[in-house]
């Protein structure tokens, strides 16, 4: 039962994340990698900016990973989130979960990204050709 949580402005390293969750007693790893898409609702996206309330975000992610360990027999859980300006194709988030059996890895990984998007104080601004908008801010 080990957790690694990081929020920083450096590019995320997929291989390092996966290496960290691997272990001889795990049989399966599920990894979710978010990537910056070139369009949203049909509008071209130029870039994204992510801002985090770091201390609280770490604390909220920690709650989520603790809950994942309670709900599923998982072995190692990693959540890395990037902040700052990201271009199309870059990676804002990596979640990796190892477990003896794949069910737990898939379900915990899915739970973590779904809950992260609901509760963790990180904000995304989308930049279009004709302006910019904080995602989800307005009804």
């Amino acid at each position: 039962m080990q957790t690694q949580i990081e929020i920083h402005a450096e590019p995320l390293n997929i291989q390092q994340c996966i290496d960290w969750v691997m272990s001889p007693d795990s049989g399966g790893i599920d990894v979710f990698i978010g990537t910056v898409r070139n369009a949203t609702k049909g509008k071209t996206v130029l870039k994204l900016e992510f801002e985090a309330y770091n201390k609280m975000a770490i604390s909220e992610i920690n709650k989520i990973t603790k809950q994942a360990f309670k709900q599923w027999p998982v072995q190692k859980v990693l959540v890395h989130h990037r902040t700052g300006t990201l271009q199309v194709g870059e990676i804002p988030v990596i979640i990796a979960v190892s477990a003896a059996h794949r069910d737990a890895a898939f379900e915990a990984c899915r739970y973590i990204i779904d809950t992260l998007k609901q509760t963790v104080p990180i904000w995304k601004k989308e930049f279009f050709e004709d302006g910019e908008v904080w995602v989800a801010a307005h009804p």
Partner: protein
Amino acid sequence: MEINILAFGIAKDIFGVSSISVEVSEQGNIATLKALLEERYPKLKQLASYMVAVNNEYAEDKLIITERDEVAIIPPVSGG
């Protein structure tokens, strides 16, 4: 008492700065604070929703604020 308030995301745009100071009455709670802020910054009311965090935890309306607390405005999150 003087409460310092951190702002993130669109809240920072609405305040125009990343932190503001507001005068809250002793025994003032989160509901008091929200009413004060919405009066001063009516655009807060146009948000889909917003929360207040105290010492890195989401706070309920009835929580009493003290001067030593770290208070932050949390507009709708959109990480991931």
